């Protein structure tokens, strides 16, 4: 009997099973406490690792200055030395070289595509023995600081899409610009200046427009938008207090306004309202900081000699380079310059010489100037356009004049500082400078590399918008390790 009772005790019945089950359900509830994402709470995969405002890993560079050469400078006349192309001047480009490259509307109806070599000579410079054309004498002197990439390529063939692609990672626009992404990823270094500033200048060459969409914050918070600094008395529009308003009155007005805004935020929860409060506050601090940054009068004489006398003429590329250094030195994460006028479809020899003269001395000066302040190590300087130019001429080829059309298959940029390997020439194009034959670097690879230098993993710097996660590099891009020091 005792055994039966014992066995009964050991046997399961429905009541026991159900009561145990209820505990089981309880255990599930307990376990669910460890799974914050179980019911779709939070942003799930990938996002948990990302906290905007802090680099993912120790950065090599803290800031970027991007000297954008808008209109696409011809690599054949500046950095990509092609003696063979010169030899073959006047000959038709071999179909094997041209391949199935689509043409722009400007040369699509051209009956012949005669090759044309550079009108200007090249020499080798520095320990790196890099070839630089005689149009860039100052840049030639600093080649040992530069990483010249001759094998950049892009997907777009016209200015606007190509420019938009390089800056936002997409040809169509409406995405955040590189500077906005960096602002989002790295946060402010100096809370008295915007994180992302834009400076425009233009040469006398054939120009292409730049539009504010290029420094857009896209779907990111609007505090990350690029702020344009213009020449003249009001570098930042609407920053100055109107007559009759002093700083105290402004302060009171802002305090009251932000109270109202806070109330509106509590009611509606729109993050744009907090962005607005922040922007007003920053504008208030900028009223102090901007005049100090814009003041070039305290620059030593050596600096004027270094950048060239134009650096004191507001609105020139040289002045913008000097300003870029000052902004960067003051903790602005991304200073974007655009120099217009590089679109040499015709009259190339004349125009490119002028364009090169506009930018050569000041670009080199910027690198030297950052270095002598010990800032080059943590500042990445980038120089380049949106695509390259064709090896054949656009329009008529005469004794001393020719033009070049858009060419997405290869172009040259250079970078300096910011943990990029100095004194190297990377990538190679064929003898006619038309196709890349070694180490191609896609625009997304370039973007990934830039982000990497700033301590950001381009695959983790994401933002969820309209149900999908976006990156600067879209869905591709590899960090080019060979470029990293």
């Amino acid at each position, binding site marked *: 009997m005792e055994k039966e009772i014992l066995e009964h005790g050991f046997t399961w019945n429905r009541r026991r099973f159900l009561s145990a089950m209820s505990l089981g359900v309880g255990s599930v509830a307990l376990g669910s406490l460890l799974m914050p994402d179980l019911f779709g709470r939070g942003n799930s995969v990938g996002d948990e690792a990302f906290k905007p405002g802090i680099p993912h890993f120790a950065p090599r560079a803290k800031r970027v200055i991007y000297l954008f050469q808008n209109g696409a400078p011809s690599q054949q006349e500046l950095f990509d030395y092609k003696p063979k192309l010169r030899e073959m001047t006047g000959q038709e480009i071999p179909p094997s070289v041209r391949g199935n490259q689509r043409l722009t509307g400007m040369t699509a109806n051209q009956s012949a595509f005669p090759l044309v070599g550079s009108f200007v000579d090249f020499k080798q410079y520095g320990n790196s023995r890099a070839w630089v054309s005689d149009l860039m004498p100052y840049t030639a002197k600093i080649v040992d600081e530069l990483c010249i990439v001759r094998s950049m390529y892009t997907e777009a063939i016209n200015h606007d899409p190509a420019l938009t692609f390089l800056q936002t990672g997409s040809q169509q626009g409406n995405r955040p610009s590189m500077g906005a992404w960096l602002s989002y990823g790295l946060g402010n270094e100096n809370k008295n200046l915007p994180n992302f500033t834009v400076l425009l200048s233009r040469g006398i060459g054939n120009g292409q427009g730049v539009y504010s969409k290029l420094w857009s914050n896209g779907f990111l918070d609007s505090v990350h938008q690029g702020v344009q600094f213009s020449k003249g008395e009001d570098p930042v529009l609407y920053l100055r207090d109107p007559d009759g308003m002093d700083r105290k009155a402004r302060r009171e007005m802002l305090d009251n306004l932000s109270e109202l805004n806070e109330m509106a935020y509590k009611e509606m929860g729109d993050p744009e309202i907090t962005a607005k409060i922040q922007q007003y506050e920053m504008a208030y601090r900028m009223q102090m900081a901007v005049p100090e940054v814009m003041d070039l009068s305290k620059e030593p004489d050596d600096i004027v*000699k270094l950048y060239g006398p134009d650096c004191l003429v507001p609105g020139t590329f040289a002045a913008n380079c000097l300003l870029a250094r000052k902004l960067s030195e003051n903790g602005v994460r991304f200073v974007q310059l655009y120099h217009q006028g590089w679109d040499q479809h015709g009259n190339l020899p004349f125009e490119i010489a002028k364009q090169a003269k506009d930018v050569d001395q000041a670009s080199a000066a910027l690198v030297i100037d950052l270095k002598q302040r010990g800032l080059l190590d943590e500042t990445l300087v980038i120089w380049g356009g949106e695509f390259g130019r064709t090896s054949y001429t656009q329009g008529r080829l005469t004794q001393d004049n020719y033009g070049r059309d858009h060419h997405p298959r290869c172009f040259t940029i250079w970078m300096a500082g910011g943990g990029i390997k100095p004194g190297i020439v990377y990538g190679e194009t064929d003898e006619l400078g038309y196709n890349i034959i070694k180490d191609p670097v896609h625009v997304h690879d370039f973007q990934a590399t830039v982000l990497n230098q700033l301590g950001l993993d381009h695959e983790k710097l994401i933002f969820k918008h309209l149900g999908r996660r976006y990156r600067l590099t879209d869905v591709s891009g590899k960090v080019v390790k060979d470029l990293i020091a």
Partner: protein
Amino acid sequence: MKIKFNVLGAQLLLVLNIFVAFLLLFENKLVVPAWLQPAGRMHPLVLHFPIVILVMAMFLEFFRSRSNSFYLQASHYLLLLGALLAGITVIMGLLLSKEEGYAGDTLFWHKWTGIAIFFISSFIYFIRNTQWYSAPAAKAGAVVTVLVVIISGHYGASLTHGENFLTEPLAVYYQPDPVAFDQALVFDHVVKPILEKKCTGCHNADKLKGELMLTDSASIVKGGKSGKLFIAGDPDMSLLLQRVHLPLEDKKHMPPAGKAQLTEPEIALLTAWIKTGTTLFSAKVSELPEHDSLRMAAAGFLQPAQPAEEKYDFSAADEKTINALSTDYRTILPLAKESPALAVNIYNREEWSGKQLEELAPLKKQVVALNLNKLPVKDGDLKSISQFQSLRHVYLNFTDITAAGLKELSILPHLQTLAVSGTKISYNDLKAQLPALKSLKSIAIWNTPITPQEAQELKKANTGITFIEGFKDDGTNPLKLNLPEVKNKSMVFTQSTQLQLSHPIKGVDIRFTTDGTEPDSTTSFLFDGKTELKENTYIKAKAYKEGWYASDVAEFYFLKCSIKPDSTHLLYKLNSVHQAEGAKSYFDNKLGVIGANNPAWANNWTGVRHTDMGLLCYFNNPATISSVGLHYMLEEVTGIYPPGSLQVWGGESEEQLKLLASLRPPPPPKGGKPSLETVEVSFKPHKVSCLKIVAVPQTNEKGDRRLLLVDEMYLN
């Protein structure tokens, strides 16, 4: 009592089963908070209990007997206890596996075998009282469970102690760590491993075949019975390579037939190595020329150079402290996510005081970079800098520090980079302080009193430090001054205007002429701000300064327009791209600039080609007019030409216009530079209420019309 305990245990086991199943189902969403992690880490401690107890239970189960109630109870409770402990261990293990550093096949097998133990033992526990649970089934279950326990235990041990924990003592060959590319030596890390793999088996101190030893550099140089192995730099004469290249059948071929042979790449590496010549044993791979075949081959198997991320020996500061100390003018940023190191930047001259450093005391361990550029930092302010013992990078450009401030820095043990550009730090200051800065790698000394010769001395005395000197103008490469500018608000005036020339660079002399001749540095007017312009004036100006080349000539037209019409009306259409402000453009005091072929910049230019340029001007009160002028652009290369003819009509109203004057300007000289020009017609003073001005574009040789661009007109 016993029964109660049993019921409770059985229920708990069922609960555990459900719980584990649930955790497994949603394992990828599992996030273990820090406070729970210690529970996970107790897994290696607890796991020993279920192992022992389950093995015991299974032993009893194997020799299962229903007859003895003590035996029955013992086995029952042991199994229950073992299964429960197995469940707890599994849960702990799952928690632990979420921590960093656990991944891979070993974990996979350990995890699933461990889970299997739990489920199998639970299963056996629940079914062991059913009728069909026979002795053979019990035996099989017991054997399986024990086997799985052993397997799982083995994988677990591998996880904790490493893959080769068991076999490690048996491993005779020591595998060195892969060497980073930039540290690798050609011989030690490229050549020697080949020799060790293929040669030293017979050519070592113990074996010495052919009296040859290949284990160290000295004996390699010495060679063996047949003589020296090679002449450095000449692979063709090398005995070593000769033996290697002999046919395999040859008795002297090395390595001997039957032993592992050298591969082609290995032979190529040896050849390239001998070729390097004098630095056979000391050369670094990274010192070889970039396209050297040896370098490229070595790069293939050596670790790429990776800048080691610095490890810090302090822990992160409290986020609250950081936030509390962050202000609008003092930014405190972590170097990276999960990095304890902080970088501090301070801005705004007005807000600066030494307190801003002192206040950072709570973060003294964590601050590794400090940026005080352009602040009025005094030596005294740096007193508190010595507390930041972790500082690596300090920026003091354009501060007021002197030798005393520098001395404060010398106590910083890790200081690597220092920037003192634009300070008063002198050669002697650095000479005295640099030896104390043991970790210093680079220092920026641009724009200090240190001369190039002194910098040279410093470099010689401190070879480990990079001195960044920067740009100093030595006057040997003078630059050309840029153009003088006009500061007048408008270059069109009614009666008179004061000429305002300026130049962006201080201390420049501006000399100018008004007669169209080239200005020179001695005889032309020196601009002093007192020149009054009363007539149309064509100014040519040049800038001069000591140490600079003179500027190019700047040209400006000052136009006098004493009479302005009250309204204007265009007679013909303008070019679509050269619209400017339409009829208003001609008297708006705004002049255009050269370069109007680009529509985007052609803001002030009105243009025509296929029509005439015709303008009707109306005056509310009749005006006496004696001349009419046009300001136009000439740019031959882009086909912009002066007007071919100019006619002026006047009268009291539109219907009564009389021709007052007409002019055919002479064609411009060929091949001229782009310029801005004026053309003017004069006539007897005439009182008009309406004026008609017609400019007709030129025609070329073929009879086609040329582009005419006009930005302003003036009436006197």
